């Protein structure tokens, strides 16, 4: 079966040429990717596989760097670099911190 990411030759619309400035968090995802691959904690193909595993509607709804961070996180969980428990606690902490800002 053709993967949802494997889109060469499928019908598609006109190309939207407007470009956005990269947000700082997106640049940090990019940096994380490079730092983790340098440290052999992530392979580019592991990241790609994790992106390809996203369900089609999820893949389409996410932005490029959202897919990247979701995939990076999956690989780090698979590799045991992070646990779901500590990630969940930290994410809750980050959300609470953000909510405290007026």
């Amino acid at each position: 079966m053709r993967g949802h990411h494997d889109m060469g030759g499928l019908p598609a619309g006109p190309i939207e040429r407007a470009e956005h400035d990269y947000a700082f968090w997106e640049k940090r995802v990019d940096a994380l990717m490079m730092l983790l691959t340098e440290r052999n904690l992530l392979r580019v193909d592991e990241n790609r596989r994790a992106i390809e595993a996203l369900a089609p509607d999820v893949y389409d709804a996410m932005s490029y760097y959202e897919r990247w961070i979701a995939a990076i996180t999956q690989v780090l969980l698979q590799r045991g670099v992070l646990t779901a428990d500590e990630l969940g606690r930290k994410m809750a902490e980050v959300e609470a911190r953000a909510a405290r800002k007026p």
Partner: protein
Amino acid sequence: MSEQDTHTPHDHAHPHPARPDQDESLGYYQVMEVAVRELLIEKGVISAGDVRRAVEAMDARTPAQGARIVARAWSDPAYKARLLADGSAAARELGIDVGATHLLVVENKPKLHNLIVCTLCSCYPRMVLGRPPDWYKSRNYRSRAVNEPRAVLAEFGTSLADDVEVRVHDSTADMRYLVLPERPAGTAGWDEARLAELVTRDSMIGVAEVRRP
């Protein structure tokens, strides 16, 4: 009235991010990014300085690097030959750190126009050109560049005669591609810096021609 950051004289010693994140609530994946980064820093896997330096290094990579490569190739036939034989080595000759990239340079000719795409995921010669434009990563470009390249080129304002071969390169594996555009007429005797100003990012991806003098 929302609280504003106050900048005391002490704050001016540390640099502000180039573009602050939005101060409304963070999306789920932004929260994830912060959490993952902070955990990795706490575990000593990376440091905050590592992240900052990596962001700055990537910010410093711009299409101007590619333009220097093209301008040198236009000016020096022996360099051009080396470039076509081993793009990574030739980029390093100019002090461009391509890391582990296997750069393959494809040359436009009067009857040959090259176009680069990565249908599977948006691979791009980031170490040479910097971060790719949104459209390069879009579904519509990734889908159509392979089977209707001339229509895609037309959307970018580029039209090619029927007797020109359009050759699409789908960056499916380990190589990364850079188009070496043709040197435009009317540039005889120009120095490399002046030539480089004609070379746009889009001409090195292949969706556009270089600027004319």
